[in-house]
């Protein structure tokens, strides 16, 4: 292997003189005392190799030795990743000793001793290729397929598969023979370089199946689909993290991977504390059982921050190849972009807008394109739904990360300062936000199998009322309450009903936090029934007073158990109030 010596140090960018070949993005280790620091090749200029060190370079000296590994940054994939808390380089944080992270500490991300209940899926004589399922083990009550490693090219013939029984991850579970007659032993683990997409599917159609999140402003107004992409930009304090946590808790996914990328450590702690206790509303099991956390919080090394989102995506692709529904959340992609900016800056590259690297938009686009809904070679389906948050500098949505992401993601959930200030949570702007999926005929066809009637038509009419309400509100602000016809107030208050009852949702209330699709259908029907009626009032005060009462009762419904006695009592009150106006 190639070795080298440190020639220069600027923060975590180190110049290395080398004695042999190196490749771009190759991983190397720099020895400093007893510690080995991991680093990645970023640029090669004759004999000078520029590497970014994933940890602090304090105390590093010119002349310190560097060993190259011959491979890019890889993750180790195999059963036992669920419920774990990894850092950005896939070290298991729970295995590390002590309260503080020690520089250069690394460990094996899986459990080598644990026995897994293996069931063969392939048999001798089967033709297989990369990602073919050879067998499965049960990981936290979900099938974890043991696949032909993704790096293996061409077709193979299965020579043998072990009988059902208990095996460790490093035990050989199958032998496959290649075209030249050479045998390959397969165990339960494989490695994959994180910056390369795993492409083992036959087809990647437009996604169309609704991914239920239990959040009304998403599911009803701007639905995301299995294999879809979305992003949540918002100034600080507008509830990005709360919304993201709500989605990750409630989404109807098999696997949830959360990449905490350069964000607050206490937010990750919240997940550590809550997820082992909270119950997955779809399966009744603990949320942590389906979750993997990749934590590179803002105080952890910056260079590893960039790696962390790729680590998370690669693990997601691995589970997708097993035919599972994966939800990947990254909070926040802006921090990742900033890590890119810091390195690009140190390498003295010519800067693009706001000093970000010129290819930022392309990098973001390439990353989002790794999500998607796929048909696997065996006819099964799998998906990665990716939702990233963006933290626009100064809350300005015209900055490069937001703009780059807008080109790549299909759903846009714009969090708005003024809604947050008025405590209208989730503070998603109902008019600017969109989901492109709602326009897909495939989606409309699919949703008809879930909800009767013209759901999309209803949602569109709801949005029209909101739009109209906003226009009327502006007119009232200019002309005054009595400067406009009473009807205008009715229109405005109809939009307020939608806002308060459908769009706003209390993420901290046990019942209101999760709104299943059936309940969303019920509430939208109720609200549209209210909004599509004619009302006659003598003056605007009566309008306000009437609708405020109506909203109050509707909200009490949101706080009550669906179709419980209390719920029905409130419903009755609403029906009575509606009858009053006839």
């Amino acid at each position, binding site marked *: 292997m190639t070795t080298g010596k440190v*020639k*220069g*140090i*600027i923060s975590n960018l180190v*110049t290395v003189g080398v004695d042999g070949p190196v490749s771009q993005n190759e991983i190397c280790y720099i020895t400093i005392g007893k510690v080995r620091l991991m680093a990645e090749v970023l640029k090669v200029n004759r004999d000078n190799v520029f590497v970014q060190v994933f940890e602090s*370079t*304090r*105390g*590093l*000296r*010119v*002349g310190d030795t560097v060993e190259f590994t011959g491979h890019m940054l890889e993750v180790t994939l195999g059963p036992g990743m669920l419920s774990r*808390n990894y850092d950005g380089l896939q070290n298991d*944080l729970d295995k590390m000793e002590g*309260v*503080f*992270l020690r*520089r250069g500490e690394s460990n094996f991300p899986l459990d080598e001793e644990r026995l897994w209940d293996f069931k063969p899926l392939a048999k001798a004589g089967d033709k297989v290729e990369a990602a073919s399922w050879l067998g499965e083990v049960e990981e936290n009550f979900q099938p974890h397929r043991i696949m032909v490693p993704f790096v293996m090219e061409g077709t193979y013939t299965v020579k043998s598969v072990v009988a059902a029984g208990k095996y460790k991850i490093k035990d050989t579970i199958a032998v496959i023979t290649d075209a030249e007659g050479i045998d390959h032993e397969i165990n339960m683990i494989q490695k994959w370089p994180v910056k390369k997409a795993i492409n083992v599917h036959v087809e990647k159609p437009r996604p169309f199946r609704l991914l239920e999140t239990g959040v009304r402003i998403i599911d009803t107004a701007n639905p995301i689909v299995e294999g879809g992409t979305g992003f949540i930009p918002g*100034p600080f*304090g507008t509830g990005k*993290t709360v919304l993201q946590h709500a989605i990750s808790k409630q989404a109807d996914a098999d696997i949830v991977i959360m990449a905490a990328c*350069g964000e*607050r*450590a*206490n937010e990750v*702690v919240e997940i*550590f504390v809550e997820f082992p206790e909270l119950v997955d509303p779809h399966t009744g099991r603990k949320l942590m059982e389906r979750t993997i956390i990749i*934590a590179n*919080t*803002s*105080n952890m090394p*910056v260079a590893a921050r960039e790696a962390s989102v790729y680590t998370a995506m690669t693990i997601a692709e691995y589970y997708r190849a097993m035919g599972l529904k994966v939800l990947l959340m990254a909070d926040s992609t802006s921090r990742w972009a*900033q890590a890119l*900016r*810091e390195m690009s*800056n*140190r390498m003295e590259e010519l*800067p693009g807008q*706001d*000093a970000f690297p010129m290819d930022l938009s392309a990098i973001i686009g390439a990353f989002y394109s790794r999500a998607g809904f796929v048909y696997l070679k065996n006819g099964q389906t799998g998906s990665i739904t990716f939702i990233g948050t963006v*933290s626009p*500098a*100064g*809350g*300005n949505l015209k900055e490069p990360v937001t703009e780059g992401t807008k080109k790549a993601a299909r759903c846009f959930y714009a969090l708005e300062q003024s809604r947050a*200030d*008025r*405590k209208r949570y989730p503070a998603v702007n109902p008019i600017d936000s969109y989901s492109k999926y709602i326009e897909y005929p495939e989606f409309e066809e699919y949703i008809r199998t879930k909800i009767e009637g013209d759901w999309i038509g209803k949602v569109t009419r709801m949005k029209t009322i909101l739009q109209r309400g906003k226009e009327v509100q502006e007119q009232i*602000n200019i002309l*005054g*309450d009595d400067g406009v016809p009473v009807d205008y107030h009715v229109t405005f208050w109809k939009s307020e009903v939608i806002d308060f009852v459908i769009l706003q949702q209390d993420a*901290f209330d046990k019942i209101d936090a999760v709104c299943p699709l059936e309940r969303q259908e019920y509430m939208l029907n109720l609200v549209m029934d209210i909004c599509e009626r004619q009302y006659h009032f003598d003056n605007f*005060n009566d309008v*306000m007073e009437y609708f*405020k009462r109506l*909203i*109050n009762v509707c*909200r*009490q419904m949101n*706080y009550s158990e669906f179709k419980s006695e209390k719920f029905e009592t409130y419903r009755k009150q609403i029906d009575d109030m509606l009858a009053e106006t006839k």
Partner: protein
Amino acid sequence: MTKAFQKIYTEITAITKATCSLHASGIGNEELATVDGKLAQVVRIIGDEVTLQVFEGTEGIPTNAEVVFLGKAPSLKVSDQLAGRFFNALGFPIDGGPEIEGEEIEIGGPSVNPVRRKQPSELIATGIAGIDLNNTLVSGQKIPFFADPDQPYNQVMANVALRAQADKIILGGMGLTNDDYLYFKNVFSNAGVLDRIVSFVNTTENPPVERLLIPDMALTAAEYFAVQKNEKVLVLLTDMTLYADALAIVSNRMDQIPSKDSMPGSLYSDLAKIYEKAVQFPAGGSITIIAVTTLSGGDITHAIPDNTGYITEGQLFLRRDSDVGKVIIDPFRSLSRLKQLAQGKKTREDHPQVMNAAVRLFADASNARTKLENGFDLTNYDERCLKFAHDYSDKILAIDVNINTTEMLDTTWNLFHTYFKPEEVNIKQELVEKYWK
């Protein structure tokens, strides 16, 4: 500080306003050195050319100045002797007292493993209702005041520090005016709490680049008390804007490409490294950070407050309310992200809903005020909102309030009852039935 075997360099090849460079070998990154007796730190090594950042500035440094490398990163001696003492940014006493004896620890040490953190949940009661009721703080939190330079943030912060029952209060003063430095010193000594205070102070009279050491010094001392003594430590950092300005000066001298508002591209990471030292340790100790970020004309989109906002767990805004003539904690723009960890859990069950309802009504009042200013008639509801807002500002939001949270809640219910009907308040029925009086 020179030891016998240390090699002394005397040939400086380049000098800028903040850095100087020389040829030297065997030097570690981030190592300390003295240049002409002034403390400096290695910031760049290219081959045998080493660049040093001179904290005091390079004024008067000759090209033949004596450069001695100390073989260690900046460090602080920690022990119980720190309590009650005042230090400069380099960790030397400025109160005339003796040097500290104790273990020497490198500042800017490693981060806490996130899985070893405990979730913050202990209420920090300040008596200020604008904080305790609307923006409840918990130990292990980090939160800044966003304030214009003319606002009384140092006074409020000193009050909070005294009322919060912390075992140690560590003051990190960056670019503090001498008057403010003396103010803190007086307040703490008058309150008889000097033995609980450790101060690291860089005043406007000291060189700006030295400020860069203050937060790490303060937090290293904080970690000593929180980790080794399991104490509850409150760290006050004022003013972080001046810290960031110093970062910009250095990065500019190092020829780095500036990003937004001339700030270095690494501003977010630099600030996060400081603020993320706030932590609740499993053994009971904690570090809570209350900082000040001064704004220019209330502009929070500037890179410093903007990046800070993304790092800290909320922010507190001060505003002068002309209605009652008092400084209040602005309920719209202030936010404590960890409030739900204490509200309704460590305080009465109705806390979250009462808080939200009151803020909503306060918002209605501000709409009514706009209407009034635009010359429109007010509805009866508008008028009641305005009266409510006046009382709410006076009895709850003003910074001179000092009551416990139960009293805050009772006061607010009382205001609801005085001005509104239950259905206008929009609170869960069960709570209304229990507390509406």
